[in-house]
Each structure stands twice: as structure tokens, then as C-alpha cells.
């Protein structure tokens, strides 16, 4: 491993988790707000996550099993936001004790200005 590839690998690894976070954030926003923009951004961010994962697998000098772990993590990160969201929804819907509504697709745009449907 050269010094340069060491730094590049580390930055790619950080970018990997950061992009996973961005994907999670955008996924949640796409569930909260209408508009194709967030859905497109979500798909794009996951595509970037896969690209970063591919770069780690193909271009870095990590040992093969770490690359397998990164690839597997890429698949797992895809599932975490929707599974978590669905779980939280079911949890809240199954519990009406404090009367709050699950935040599904309220008709409004980004800056909290909402238009009643």
C-alpha cells in the first residue's frame, strides 16, 4: 500500500458512510415531502453510494474480505432507511395514545409552507 493509496482509501471509506447518511436523509425527506425532486435525489445518492463502494472494491488495496464487507454493507445500507421508516410507522400507528399522526406524505413543500389538499 502506498502512502497515497492509504489516504485515498481512508477518504473513500469515510465518503462511503457519509453517502449512506445522505441517502438516509434524502430517503426520509422524500417520505415527508411531495415532489419528484427528493425521490430523484434519493436514487442519485444511492447510486453515488454504490459508485463509492465500487471504487473501494475495485481500486483500493484492501484485503478481499474487507471489500466483501463493504459490498455487503452497501446492500444493507439500502434497506436501513425504508425498513426503519416502516417500523417506526407501524410502531406509531399501532399506538394512538397521544394522537399524533405518522408523518406520511403531508401535502407541503420544503420550507414548511403547507397547502391543504
Amino acid at each position: 500500500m502506498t502512502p497515497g493509496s492509504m489516504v485515498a482509501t481512508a477518504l473513500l471509506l469515510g465518503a462511503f458512510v457519509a453517502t449512506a447518511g445522505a441517502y438516509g436523509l434524502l430517503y426520509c425527506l422524500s417520505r415527508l415531502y411531495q415532489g419528484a425532486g427528493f425521490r430523484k435525489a434519493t436514487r442519485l445518492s444511492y447510486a453515488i453510494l454504490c459508485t463509492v463502494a465500487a471504487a473501494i472494491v475495485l481500486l483500493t488495496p484492501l484485503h478481499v474480505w474487507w471489500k466483501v464487507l463493504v459490498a455487503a454493507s452497501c446492500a444493507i445500507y439500502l434497506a436501513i432507511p425504508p425498513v426503519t421508516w416502516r417500523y417506526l410507522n407501524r410502531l406509531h400507528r399501532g399506538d394512538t395514545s397521544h394522537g399524533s399522526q405518522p408523518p406520511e406524505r403531508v401535502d407541503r413543500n420544503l420550507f414548511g409552507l403547507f397547502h391543504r389538499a
Partner: protein
Amino acid sequence: MYTQDPTFWRAGAIAASLFMCIILAALTIDTLGQIRPGGTHVPSYDVINSSITYQYDPKRGEYVPEIGGEDLIFGHKYTAAEAADLIARGKLVIQSRACIDCHTFFGNGAYYAPDLTHAWMDPFWARYDGPKRADRLAKFLMHPIRLGARPMPDLHIQRDEAEATVAYLKWMSAVDSNGFPDRFGAAASQAGK
């Protein structure tokens, strides 16, 4: 759906934690055996009577400490018991002066001063042979001279404390740290220093 039942996740939390703790306990017992002095990774304390160098091991693909022939420090061949006492005292010096709050040991500590894992073999000291090296290191600890931009303070280290610390550093440099730091001293020797 059972995943909506909190008790499912409570059982999962308990099971996961217990399972991991059991594995940790088993690995701990094995590791403690390997890191005791004279174990697979940690030399016995009387290694301070021998020469220690850091060599590339092609089988392992990393640098490892090599223990060689006799190379005494302070003109004395320490018995196992004497070495153990000296090492214990050295550790007390290191703790009493909180060396770990400027330096690192195996990379752990503070990042204000150099890592001391292989200080014994540092090119700055390794230009002196065994007894002279130990003596110069001890004198440095007692009256630190300014080696670079980052001066070491005078911590009122007495002669016997300094000798114990030097012995400690020598013993520590013989610990198999799985190749950390990588290529220690290799760059300096390549540069012909």
C-alpha cells in the same frame, strides 16, 4: 407482527449482549495468556539484557522486533526478578510523570510528543551502541536537551528513575505490536543517516 412487539426486541437486546459478552470473555482469557511477559507477543522482562532490533519479516509481510545476543544496559546483567522490579519501577515513573499525556505508547496517549514504542531503537539513539545508548537516554531524561521544535520539560527524574525508564523503553520495544509503527527507522536508514 412479532417485530412490533417490544418484548421481541428486548429479548434480542439481551441475547445479543450476552452472546457478545461470552465471546469477549473467551477471547480475553486467550489474549491475557498471550500478552503476559514470556507469552507469544510480549517478551519476558530480562530481554533488557539482549540486543533488540526491528527487522522486516517477509513471511509476515511486516516489521517485527528481533531479539539478539547479549547487550547489557548500565553495566549489569539483570536476573529475571531484578528485571521485573526494574520494569515495575519504570512503569511507576511513566505513570507518576504522566508521560502518556504528551507521548504515545503503542500509539495510545497524547499526540504532542513522539511515539515511544520503539524509542529504544530510534535512529537518534541507535547510533550509540548498547551501554552508551542507555546512558545517554538516561541523561536525556534527567536533563532534557532540546532536540527539535518541541522541547521536553524537566520532570525532575532522578538517576534511578531514569535507568528504570530506559529499561522499560527497551523492554517495550521488544513487544510484537503486529508491525506498528510500520517501517520504523527504515526511511532513516535508506536516507543513509
